[in-house]
């Protein structure tokens, strides 16, 4: 049985200038210990997807359809108190910007302890747990008594990760965890996430715009565009058998060390989701677009073992 099952999830934002469908019919399953990378440009809906899994889509957004099954239970149908208990303990999130996800007005230890206490831990035990997990992410004990602004970006992110794993969640959602950090620190943080995956057996959803990172670290890759899934496959399968034009375009846009081929950028702009194009949402930028692409939205088709594409080219 899957750890996490997402079925036909739709999230819309009801703004003054129109209704935006940020997540359109996303479905996927996540096994235990699997790392799924959700890859897309900004506006692809990947961050909204992450928040939706915790039922934390901010106003004016609303989850209009779909199910998020964690161990068989639909997260979206829980009462506020029930879901509060799940957040941080069975489903946790690591955010992109380490500077704003730790409260600058309080010491690390106070925030961490409070988090533990809110989930029912005993005061007498909480401090040692804080020490244990800070150590697990490679931070010295004295960090505890500091304020966030006294730490570096990388250190702050480690603290966030420590809190995200402390209650041994089944699923950790990492929303662009390394984007705000420099490359060296990036590797350290990703190594840490790998380590956690291995040691604690957590499933990880890695949200990123960096296809290279996804291909390097994840087990499965899901490519999103304009709120829709374009392609979904196991990493090796995707590398060998890339099907969707968008995925190919993303891949070709990656800079390469070994060859002389220059990265090829994708012309055009992401769609205005207030008035999205008819048919396939990618067709305006697709070099293979046909008449059918302009009129009809493609369905997800299985083109290989566990490999799905939403594209008319592969009927």
């Amino acid at each position: 049985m899957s750890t996490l099952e997402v079925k036909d999830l739709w999230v819309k934002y009801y703004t003054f200038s129109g209704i935006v469908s940020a997540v359109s019919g996303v479905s996927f399953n996540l096994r235990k210990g699997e790392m799924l990378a959700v890859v897309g440009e900004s506006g692809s809906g990947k961050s909204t997807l992450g928040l939706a899994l915790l039922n934390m889509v901010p106003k004016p957004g609303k989850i209009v359809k779909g199910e998020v099954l964690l161990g068989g239970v639909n997260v979206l149908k829980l009462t506020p108190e029930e879901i509060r208990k799940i957040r941080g303990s069975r489903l946790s999130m690591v955010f992109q910007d380490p500077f704003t996800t730790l409260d600058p007005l309080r010491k690390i230890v106070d925030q961490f302890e409070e988090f533990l206490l809110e989930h029912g831990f005993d005061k007498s035990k909480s401090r040692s747990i804080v020490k244990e997990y800070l150590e697990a992410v490679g931070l010295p004990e004295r960090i505890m008594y500091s304020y966030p602004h006294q730490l570096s970006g990388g250190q702050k992110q480690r603290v966030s990760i420590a809190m995200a794993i402390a209650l041994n969640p089944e699923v950790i959602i990492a929303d662009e965890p390394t984007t705000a950090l420099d490359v060296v620190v990036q590797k350290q943080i990703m190594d840490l996430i790998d380590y956690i995956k291995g040691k604690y057996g957590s499933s990880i959803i890695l949200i990123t715009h960096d296809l290279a990172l996804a291909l390097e670290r994840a087990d499965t890759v899901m490519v999103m565009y304009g709120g829709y899934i374009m392609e979904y496959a196991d990493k090796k399968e995707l590398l060998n058998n890339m099907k969707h034009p968008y995925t190919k375009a993303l891949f070709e846009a990656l800079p390469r060390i070994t060859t002389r081929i220059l990265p090829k950028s994708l012309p055009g702009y992401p769609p205005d989701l207030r008035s999205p194009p008819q048919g396939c949402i990618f067709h305006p930028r697709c070099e293979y677009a046909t008449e059918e692409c302009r009129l009809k939205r493609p369905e997800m088709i299985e083109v290989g073992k566990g490999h799905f594409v939403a594209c008319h080219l592969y009927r």
Partner: protein
Amino acid sequence: MGLARYIAIRALAIIPTVLILYTLVFIVLRVLPGNPVLAAIGTKNIPEEQLKELMKELGLDKPLYQQYFEYLYNFIRGDMGQSMIIRGRSIAGDIADKLPATIELSVWSIIFSLLIGIGLGYLGARAHSRVVKTAVRLTGSILFVIFIPALGLSLQLIFSKYLGLLPIGGRLSSVGLLKPITGLYTIDALIELKPLVFIDALQHLLLPAFTLGLVISGPYIRLTMNNIEEILESKIIEAYRARGVREEKIFRHAFRHVLIPITTYTGLQFSLLMGGAVLTETTYNWPGIGTYLVDKVMYRDYTAIQAVVIIFAVIVGLTSLIVDILYALIDPRVRY
């Protein structure tokens, strides 16, 4: 760096500020044209001899720079000179008598203003209807521009004259005697365990503090409302929620963040508070240094006016120090 060192540095910083303000006052009151003694006495028909005598007595015949330093020196030692109008009357003594009244009024006014301002701001932030929000914001803007004596007199009319609920002025009726320890009658009454006097003092404080507090609360309303809205949508709060922290706790943390701009603003608006206090005291016959100033202005008692204005400058310096300290207590980023 630590809190202690921060406080020490800020405390030292007041000294130049107050000195500059003192210089400003001195320039304004002494350097500007007009002979203060003549203005005080009100007539130009005074024999040359007597005029010279008076000026000598008040120390006004010495060269300006000498007056500057001597006055400053004396002032620090607590000697603020004598009234020009009431001969032999120590200004420092008068001010010492009346200062606690002004402090009491100011403190209670701030309490009222924070209650009203933060309360309404909070309600406005939690309201869903745009109409309510606009109404709250507008209320904030309008409250701030109410002319204090107008409001005060209207309240006196309603509550004292027609409803007879509250006294019209002064600090105490003759309900009981009070040995002034701090000079703040509400606190003194509590210390001396005289509940009746406490209530009496409170009754007298109610209208003036409410008047001043209401007007001062205006900007707090908008400030609180905007900041609560902003913070509740901020990433910091999102992170708390994603960790499963309860809403009540989240609110408490959010509030701490809101306190920062509120504290900053409180520091800035002390100047306005003092101007408002002068008007409030005059309106309610509250025997503080505000009424003292106005009385002295009416009688052109220059030496007294100078002393009071300097006292106000000192108060500005001290209150900005207190606010700085409070700010440092709330926001650790400042002290490290």
